């Protein structure tokens, strides 16, 4: 079946602009995660959605970052007033339960 998809695959933006990244999880997966992967680093947790519960936003690095999820489907991660340190690969993962997360291919964000 279809895996997790993310769009765009690459995004180049100018400092100060807003960007929106999209994630389509695997159908039926109730949990959705966003992670950030900076060059040479492991993945950093950003935000977690589970069903209709309030999201866990504890990993968001600043108030310029926000995310939404419509029910148990699509999620968008928005970064306002982008900075050069926001340059990274943003990975989305979905999960049917606690024992495995399925990752999308990521969106590579470059802030000039």
């Amino acid at each position, binding site marked *: 079946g279809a895996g997790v998809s993310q769009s765009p695959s690459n995004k180049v933006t100018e400092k100060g602009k807003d960007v929106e990244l999209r994630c389509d999880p695997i159908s039926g997966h109730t949990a959705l995660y966003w992670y950030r992967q900076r060059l040479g*680093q492991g993945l950093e947790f950003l935000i*977690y959605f589970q069903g209709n519960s309030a999201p866990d936003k504890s990993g968001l690095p600043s108030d310029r970052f926000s995310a939404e999820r419509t029910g148990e489907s699509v999620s968008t991660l928005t970064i306002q007033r982008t900075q050069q340190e926001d340059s990274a690969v943003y*990975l989305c993962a979905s999960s049917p339960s606690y024992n495995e997360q399925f990752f999308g291919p990521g969106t590579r964000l470059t802030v000039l």
Partner: protein
Amino acid sequence: AQSVTQLDSQVPVFEEAPVELRCNYSSSVSVYLFWYVQYPNQGLQLLLKYLSGSTLVKGINGFEAEFNKSQTSFHLRKPSVHISDTAEYFCAVTSGGSNYKLTFGKGTLLTVNP
């Protein structure tokens, strides 16, 4: 809080040689452990996972890992590597809690040379 340390940032080996990628974790509670592989320009793919039971876990592509609670380690091994195993390998841990978020190590780049 939980953390993961991958002791080697790069591991070069020759084809058909054995390899071990080291991973140590710290957590004050019981954990679930994972190894993911990332091929160039691709997302992460699960290699194997330890949830409970047998401490020796077998995964895809001939990889296996052993959970050692006393040494808080979860090292990844393969007895004979192929060129196609060249990739970045990430160890990850979750202690469950309310969100099962994964904490990742910084990754080990495995390069298999002919």
